[in-house]
């Protein structure tokens, strides 16, 4: 029996990857697709499809069980904050084990090796490090849970994509917005490894996981197999915009120095907290409390009764800013630390194993993927 005729259960279906999985299933002819929907407001994209939307939560065992029903194939793209990643994965696996599924495809991430993977992590043979990043480490722990269920007989497959892009991807939406605002900085001339994976190539790999029995129990890196750098990825978006401001450049060494000079957590919190306490926004919020409103009004009246010069002295003495939002002094446009970590890796993941075992061939090359993204961005009013 063709697997597309069997009941298929998709988690994370309202997200970027899960949404495309559902679309591709419909295009391939699947007739019995159930998609778990946690936040119904996010279901507009998949509500267009002839699939069944099932309300529920991956954090609730019973809910997952009911939603999964008699599914024979589970494609788990669902996420949850922090350690919720573990609970949602375990709940879905438990339900899948009880339902006796024939395949459980787990969407992991190459970030199990951290935001800046160390050399040596190019192939799936490398052991998982403790990265210190909550998301990366929890995704790594989730993989261990998947493997433990495989040992108990659940036919699991793990996929590790990296930078998945395509229509509906937040990477491109954010990038064109920031390019337009002149907020994009190339780090080290954009030489960092981007490891792009066009979303349809990834979905091809999902389908292969289901088709190929050799995939069971295995873990695969999935990218486009091209050595696309962050510079390539960012520059490919520039021509989409008319008159985009020029890209700025900075070296990783300069950024490292910049972040080293930033106040630590305690001092930084005290500084920001102090600024917030004196801010106009907080004063306005506090005015909702009647007693404070009266005190503020009395203080304001007293201030107004003072000569201008004295008012200025008082303001200066207490450094009362007009707004909690700091003025853009240039630092705000510095790439965030997470961006620096993501964009300065040197490792290009190998898809040799996926090619060999799955017969995976990335169909959409980067040049074509970017054109499709541009078409979509225009339709979606992002350009």
């Amino acid at each position, binding site marked *: 029996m063709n697997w*597309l005729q069997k009941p298929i259960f998709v988690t994370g279906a309202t997200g970027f990857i899960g949404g495309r999985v559902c679309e591709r299933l419909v295009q*391939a002819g699947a007739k019995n697709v159930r998609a778990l929907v946690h936040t119904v407001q996010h279901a507009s*994209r998949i509500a267009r499809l*002839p699939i069944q939307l099932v309300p529920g939560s991956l954090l609730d065992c019973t809910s997952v069980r009911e939603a999964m029903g008699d599914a024979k194939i589970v494609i788990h793209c669902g996420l949850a904050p922090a350690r919720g990643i573990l609970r949602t994965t375990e709940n879905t696996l438990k339900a899948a084990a009880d339902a006796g599924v024939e395949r459980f495809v787990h969407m992991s991430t190459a970030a199990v090796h951290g935001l800046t993977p160390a050399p040596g992590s190019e192939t799936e043979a490398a052991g998982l490090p403790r990265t210190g990043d909550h998301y990366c480490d929890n995704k790594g722990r989730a993989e261990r849970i998947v493997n433990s269920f495989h040992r108990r007989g659940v036919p699991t497959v793990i996929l590790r994509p990296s930078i998945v892009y395509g229509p509906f991807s937040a990477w491109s939406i954010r990038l064109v917005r920031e390019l337009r605002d002149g907020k994009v900085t190339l780090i080290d001339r954009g030489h960092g490894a981007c490891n792009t994976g066009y979303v349809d190539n990834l979905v091809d790999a999902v389908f292969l996981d289901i088709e190929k029995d050799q995939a069971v129990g295995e873990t695969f890196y999935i990218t486009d197999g091209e050595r696309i750098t962050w510079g390539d990825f960012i520059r490919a978006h520039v021509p989409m915009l008319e008159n985009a401001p020029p890209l700025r450049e900075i070296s990783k060494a300069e950024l490292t120095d910049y972040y080293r000079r930033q106040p630590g957590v305690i001092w930084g919190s005290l500084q920001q907290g102090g600024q917030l306490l004196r801010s106009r926004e907080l004063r306005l919020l506090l005015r909702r409390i009647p007693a404070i409103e009266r005190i503020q009004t009395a203080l304001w009246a007293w201030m107004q009764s003072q000569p201008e010069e004295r008012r200025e002295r008082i303001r200066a003495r207490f450094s009362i800013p007009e707004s909690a939002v700091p003025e853009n002094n240039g630092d705000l446009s510095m790439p965030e630390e997470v961006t620096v970590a993501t964009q300065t890796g040197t490792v290009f993941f190998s898809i040799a194993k996926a090619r060999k075992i799955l017969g995976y061939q990335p*169909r959409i090359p980067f040049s074509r993927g970017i054109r499709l993204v541009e078409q979509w961005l225009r*339709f979606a009013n992002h350009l």
Partner: protein
Amino acid sequence: MADKLRMAILGCGAITKSRHLPAVLAHPDVRLDALVDIDLERAAALARLNNVQCRVTADYRSVLGEVGAIINALPNHLHAPVIIDALNAGVHVLCEKPLAITSADARACCELAAKKTLVLAVGMNRRFQPGTLILRSVLEEGLLGNLQGYDCQYGGSYDWETTSGFYFSKTKAGGGVLIDYGVHLLDTLVDCFGPVVSIDYQDDDWGGGIEANAILDLHHHGTYGDIRGVMRLSRTYELPNRLIVRGSDCWSESPAADTDVVLVHRHLARQDVTMTLRHPEPNLGFRSNSFYKQLENFVRSVQGTEPPVVDGWQALSIIELIEQCYAHRRRIPEPWSEPADARTEVSS
């Protein structure tokens, strides 16, 4: 007290909580007799939250013999059957949009209301927004010159706090963004420019789902002659969210962000200027709200002092238009989604 219109609200979801109930509680000529919802606890919680002393029940039929009017804020597929029951019980109805999910049902409601000489008003609250009223005056006064067409774009990530989630069920909602938000805009456009004589419609329903995006080319023939316009709706993409009407002298803009105003853009002594048109009336708090004004109009209609601004027949004409759209729909091209060379071959 005896002169007050005794009302029940059927359906205690998001629209009742945020709009209808505050309007009813604020109206001096209305007494709320009952809140009705299949989820009794939801209805009771709403009553408690608003400190309302009224009956709370899951059985709408049990209140029909007691009240003079209802607000029908149930999911779309329940609008028509409940209206029929209410009218048969001699109860006036203010129904949330859309009046029904088929024109046959909508027509049956209108005919029964006429036969029973009862008020059937439909909740097209945009008609009561100051900006809509100002736009009508702008057009009537010919402020824009000869009308050349319009461009109407409304869209954003869907964020309506639906309690029942019926919006994503085709059988319960009757459709997607067109029958949900589009019904308001079509009503406004038909009200401004006259009946639609031809229509070209595209949406992104993949077949068996409900559309998140819709694009309409509309051709009206009315008071201002032949007017063509484009309407785009989206539940997934942020659109400009405004109605632009172009004239030979200048163009108007009705922004969704401020439904109290109409902006008129024009050249003045070789400069581009924008005039903001706004009613000078003082802010009356919630009584300025379009839902309050809609209720006010309904109450006066029941009292026989004025007709409903939007009656069932007008709403029926919009349902017919929507039905026509769905019947002749073309799919919006999505080249980024097409499986032209996708792996569709699968092994058994």
